[in-house]
């Protein structure tokens, strides 16, 4: 297979061997499991259990609400103790609604419906439903519900790409998964390919993982599948979705577009293994591999962790060296975020907990002014001009910054890594993106308000027009009446005149009497309308 290269990127120190010395082992059942209702992009799941209720392992705790949503399952058997806001792994220490589960230690499964190998008889939409009901989201980090990405709609998919690049330093959970569960990954890939009707399936793995490559090749051979296992050069961010697709297919995902636009769908290898378990064994997504590493833990390793396990438990299990100054990073050192409180739980997208000492993540020296050296642009895999983006973000020139394609930034951190002036460039882009989103929300709100106001004005005018129309009709009707009754009127007027004449009080304006009468009448007709106006 001919590989293609993408612009920029970095050769980073990997630090991967430190967490790959031991085989993966289960982290065990913690004292409490904290299960955020939102562990995916989209609408949070809706709880269907009550506090105090006993649940079995794999039982649904919360249903999907809306299309972009997935259900949540009990990682072990036990009792629901609360449904309340808890701190989740988020840079701000945000609190969101969580189901708190107290395990009973029995770890007894609910009844599962394994499909075995007959998934090929299933309709792709039924398959997608199984995957959705198993609560599977992208395990690479974004957490987008996987069943949606397995629904190409009217597009025809040429290539299903499985992402096993794992380009970020320190993280090895995918590498370990590929070594230990290669058959599950390849089988999952075949299921996904069936759901997508994709022509080819390629698994891209960085060439610094020879063991994973060998295991996948062996698995593909054993299964007699034509899934291609491709070695890609180790260069950060080779595992970025757009970069991996470019490397493997030579095609670029359009700016503001999706891979499906070029007939490609990309999933993480972990997601494939989860799909296999969901379809063949009927198991929902309740556990995942997590790397716990960094120089601030004594035994860096990978563990199979129940979703909801507090991060502090993992750090404890790996021997956190509390006396070593450190910070806890969730994710890798390039794209992860720093955690302030470690009682927050592992969620479906948690791939790595990095206990970073000064050796892993040195304290940055204070930033200096940008000298426009262009190192950032040379390193940018999205071919942007990071320094111009920085300039416009600083100036809060949000129109211009979008002109420079801010939203094509994947926040990989290459620019900030190479910056000789030590500027936290990505932070500026996040700030600008957030501001622009906020402005768009404001604008949307303002647009709605303006629409409402304009409709209000329009309604008032329409009512006024209707009222005038009614008056006009009424006047016309009266006028018609007065012309048809003209002779009668004339007779009455003549009679009145005679009476007046008799009284000797003949008045010049006597003929106006009819008009006065009419206006009084129309005045009455106005009254209910005025009343209506008052109401509005």
């Amino acid at each position: 297979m001919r590989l293609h290269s993408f612009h920029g990127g970095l050769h980073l120190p990997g630090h991967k061997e430190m967490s790959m010395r031991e085989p993966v082992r289960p982290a065990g059942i913690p004292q409490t499991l904290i299960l955020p209702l939102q562990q995916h992009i989209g609408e949070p799941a809706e709880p269907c259990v009550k506090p105090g209720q006993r649940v079995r392992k794999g039982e649904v705790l919360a249903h999907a609400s809306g299309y972009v949503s997935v259900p949540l399952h009990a990682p072990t058997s036990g009792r629901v103790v609360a449904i309340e806001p808890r701190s989740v792994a988020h840079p701000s220490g945000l609190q969101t609604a969580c189901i708190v589960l107290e395990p009973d230690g029995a770890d007894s499964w609910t009844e599962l419906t394994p499909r075995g190998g007959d998934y090929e008889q299933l309709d792709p939409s039924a398959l997608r439903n199984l995957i959705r009901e198993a609560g599977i989201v992208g395990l690479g980090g974004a957490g987008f519900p996987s069943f949606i990405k397995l629904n190409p709609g009217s597009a025809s998919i040429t290539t299903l790409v499985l992402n096993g690049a794992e380009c970020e330093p320190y993280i090895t959970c995918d590498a370990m998964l590929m070594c230990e569960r290669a058959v599950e990954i390849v089988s999952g890939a075949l299921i996904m390919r069936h759901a997508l009707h994709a022509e080819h399936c390629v698994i891209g793995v960085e060439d610094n993982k020879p063991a994973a490559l060998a295991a996948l090749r062996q698995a593909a051979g054993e299964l007699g599948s034509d899934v291609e296992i491709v070695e890609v050069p180790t260069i950060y961010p080779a595992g970025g979705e757009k970069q991996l697709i470019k490397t493997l297919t030579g095609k670029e995902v359009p700016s503001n577009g999706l891979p499906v636009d070029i007939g490609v769908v990309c999933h993480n290898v972990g997601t494939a293994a989860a799909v296999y378990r969901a379809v063949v064994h009927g198991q929902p997504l309740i556990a995942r591999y997590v790397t716990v590493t960094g120089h601030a833990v004594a035994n860096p390793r990978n563990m199979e962790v129940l979703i909801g396990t507090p991060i502090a438990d993992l750090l404890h299990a790996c021997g956190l060296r509390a006396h070593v100054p450190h910070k806890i990073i969730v994710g890798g050192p390039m794209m992860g975020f720093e955690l302030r409180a470690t009682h927050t739980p592992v969620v479906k997208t948690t791939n790595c907990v990095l206990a970073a000492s000064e050796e892993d993540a040195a304290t940055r020296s204070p930033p200096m002014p940008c000298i426009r050296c262009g190192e950032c642009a040379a390193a940018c895999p999205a071919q942007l001009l990071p320094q111009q983006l920085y300039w416009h973000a600083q100036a809060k020139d949000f129109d211009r910054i979008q002109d420079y394609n801010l939203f094509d930034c994947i926040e990989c951190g290459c620019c900030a890594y190479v910056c000789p002036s030590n500027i936290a460039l990505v932070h500026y882009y996040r700030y600008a993106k957030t501001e622009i989103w906020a402005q768009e929300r404001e604008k949307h709100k303002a647009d709605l308000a303006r629409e409402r106001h304009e409709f209000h004005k329009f309604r008032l005018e329409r009512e006024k027009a209707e009222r005038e129309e009614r008056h006009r009709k009424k006047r016309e009707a009266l006028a018609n009446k007065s012309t048809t009754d003209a002779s009668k009127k004339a007779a009455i007027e003549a009679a009145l005149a005679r009476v007046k004449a008799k009284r000797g009080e003949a008045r010049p304006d006597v003929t106006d009497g009819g008009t006065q009468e009419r206006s009084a009448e129309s005045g009455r007709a106005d009254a209910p309308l005025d009343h209506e106006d008052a109401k509005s």
Partner: protein
Amino acid sequence: MLPSTTLSSPHMHGANGLTRVMLSVIFALVPALAAYVFFFGWGILINIVLALVTALASEAIMLRLRGRPALPFLSDGSAAVTAILLGMAIPPLTPWWMIVLGAMFALVFAKHLYGGLGYNPFNPAMAGYVLLLISFPLEMSTWAAPSTEAAHSLSMLESIRYSLLGTLPNGIMLDAVSAATPLDTVRTQVLLDKSLTELASTGTIAGRGWEWVNGLCLLGGLWLVSRRTITWHIPVGLLAALLTLSSLFYLVDAGRYASPALHLFSGATMLGAFFIATDPVSAATTPMGRLVYGVGIGVLTFVIRTWGGYPDGIAFAVLLMNMAAPTIDYYTRPRVFGQSGR
């Protein structure tokens, strides 16, 4: 817990730093500097010391006046690079106060009044140089004669005395220690309507001493390119433009136009191409833009050298292209990933 100075990812940083960049530049200048001293005496070194002291003092005073922390900015090495480049551009036999004036103007007016490091639209060293060139054209075009052909070469002490007091050793006239530069000679010859072929240009290709200085600047520059302190675009654009234009005119009339070798290896060509024009702050920044910027300087240099009022044109060419840099950047934006070519 570590003090959290990193607001968000990435939490790793490469070894690259401003001081490292500036020190590489200074390091790359050392061989050329040695050649300067060897061929043109101690004057250049005196220039550099005077410029360094003035530049660092001006930087410190301006930082204080502007309420900025002095240490990180003084230690970044940018003022030192400006001072060294200025010192190398000014002729070896120049009175001390001119150098002090030039260095002060470079740091105070061309750098700090525009906002300091990273904000100056013009190359500070060239701004200082041009101020001196247009204010004191006579002194600024009196170069020391190459030691190999001077009637007398000044010792270090004699050079210092000349710089500070303006006095030469007894019995020695300024003419004995100074000489016209090759580019100057070319200019004079052309003005006198003499053919350049009879120009007894010393040295092998571009004037004794000058070819060495330029060759070593080229060497240092290539080293900077090889370790990616600078990119190849500006030097290649500049030298290619200069080579093309000078070859073209030389082929048409070798009697009236200087040879490409003289253009490339004389005057400030290599110093300009690799060390002055590549000042990132005032140059264009996109790859394509840098190429255009380099070509622009090359063309302007040739034009000024050939038809302008000054023997060398690098400084003016750099300043003129500095003005064009933002516009060049705007029109040479690279294609963004996932967009069809613009």
